[in-house]
């Protein structure tokens, strides 16, 4: 029961989606299954949040190192939920002014908008922006032309880096004869992207596609049951 039912669910759901592509009669089944899937995806979002909070609460209760930060996370989590679900500072929808709950939860000036604008935006975008610094140190300390392969990679990278700025044009201005114009880094970049890059990526893409067929098939045939857990 614990393993058999889920196995059947997975196989049936997968095959319904497969045949819905080929047999118009089954299209409707595919759509229904897909709609349920999309609604269920919200459940997965809630589960993700729930798991996170569960872990943080465990950290706090066991007073593990850094439990104070866990407390910050928990407080922020509940504050965001409270403010967002309560639609604090949200005015009604202009089309339905007599419905107090009809407004947009991210309306400019509302509580959730404030959190989004002043906390989520700066924090998430700066986290990502840090990578610019890391890429610089990695360039200085790690990217070595130690063999033919790495040299080829770094030279291509250099051409693309210059070719995707005005430097690629400017460096060649005035002295490159017209018949060698294709050597200008911006033109060379276009060629690299269109020919070798397209070819290499295509080979990788085809390989990945076959890999996905294999993994999906193992699930649909019921030979890969790792998602069912251990017991």
């Amino acid at each position, binding site marked *: 029961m614990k393993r058999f039912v889920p196995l059947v669910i997975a196989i049936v759901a997968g095959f319904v989606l497969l045949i819905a592509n080929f047999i118009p009669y089954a299209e409707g089944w595919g759509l229904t299954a897909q709609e349920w899937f999309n609604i*269920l995806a919200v459940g997965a979002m*809630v589960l993700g949040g729930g798991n996170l909070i569960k872990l943080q609460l465990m950290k706090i209760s066991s007073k593990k190192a850094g439990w104070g930060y866990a407390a910050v*996370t928990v407080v922020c989590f*509940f504050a965001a*939920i409270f403010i967002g*679900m309560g639609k604090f500072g949200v005015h009604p929808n202009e089309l339905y002014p007599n419905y107090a709950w009809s407004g947009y939860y991210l309306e400019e000036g509302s509580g959730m908008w404030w959190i989004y604008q002043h906390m989520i935006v700066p924090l998430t975008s*700066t986290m990502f922006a840090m990578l610019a610094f890391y890429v610089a140190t990695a360039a200085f300390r790690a990217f070595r032309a130690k063999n033919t392969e790495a040299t080829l990679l770094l030279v291509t990278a250099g051409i693309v880096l210059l070719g995707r700025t005005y430097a690629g044009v400017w460096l060649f201005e005035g002295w490159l004869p017209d018949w060698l114009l294709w050597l200008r880094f911006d033109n060379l970049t276009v060629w690299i992207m269109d020919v070798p*890059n397209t070819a290499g*990526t295509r080979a990788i893409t*085809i390989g990945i596609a076959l890999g996905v067929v294999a993994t999906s098939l193992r699930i649909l045939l019921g030979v890969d049951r790792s998602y069912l857990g251990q017991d």
Partner: protein
Amino acid sequence: MSESKQQSNGLIWAVVFIIGAIMLVWSMSTSRTGQVWVTAEQHAFVQNADGDWAKTDAASATSNDIAWTSYSSVPDNELTDEMISSGDAKMSWSRTIGLWLSAIFTLFILSFLVGDNPAYKFAEAMVVGTSAGYVMVIGLWDVFVPNLLGKLFPVMVQNWALPGMDASVGTQLLYIIPAILIVMLLMQLMPAGGWISRWPIAFFIGITAGYRMIGYVEADLVAQIKAAIIPLYETGADGTFAIWDTMNACILTIATLSAMVYFFFSIEHKGFVGKTARLGIWFLMITFGASFGYTVMGRIALLAQRLEFLFGDWLHLI
């Protein structure tokens, strides 16, 4: 070693602080740095004879009407002294505090470059908590209410949050199934009975396997082979032999085939196959080089945007 490290540590801190202090003093001496100004807009609605609500002039609104005021931020370069003196624009404390918080959070995160520290950890804990909460809120208002509650309890949802929806269809009982699946999934958070969550997970995995298989075969396998079938003899518009196009077509084909040979695992890389595979890996390296260049380009753009925020929105330097 450690002494010189400490020395350079101190030097870096000094440089960062001096630059920061100069910037702040400079910008503070000019006006309105770090402030957010807003303009107000009045909204008023009056009920007509049919019972519908229509927009009306805010000045003539009576106590029976519905009215509220909303505010929108004015960019600093559009803010004139006239607007300030006439009272059209007001400084918003909540948004000014928010702006300073954004700037401080940005600096907190950037402080990680100097070393792991409590400020960074604090900011990180906040981003984890708020974004998780935010995602839940979105899930509730954008999906859960219209796509599930709205189908199960249409009249209630219409009267509460979504007056514009069509409730005439009535309750669609079939939607109980996804509702039950969600409950089963959330059972995983319970100490016992977590095994039942395998049902929705299996449903998830089955559906994903089904559509991925088709999507990848159609777009990434069949369509890619189709795209790779090109003539190795190209002619121009006038029907004459085009040497550049032909050369590119040949390189494209050789590169694709040799890179595919590299990923064969049933043949040993010896002799001709070995040489082809070696050629393939060179083309793959060019591919990775291009990818490297593009990735670096993207990362720098992200930093530029953050610094524009600090220098522009916050410090009004640009």
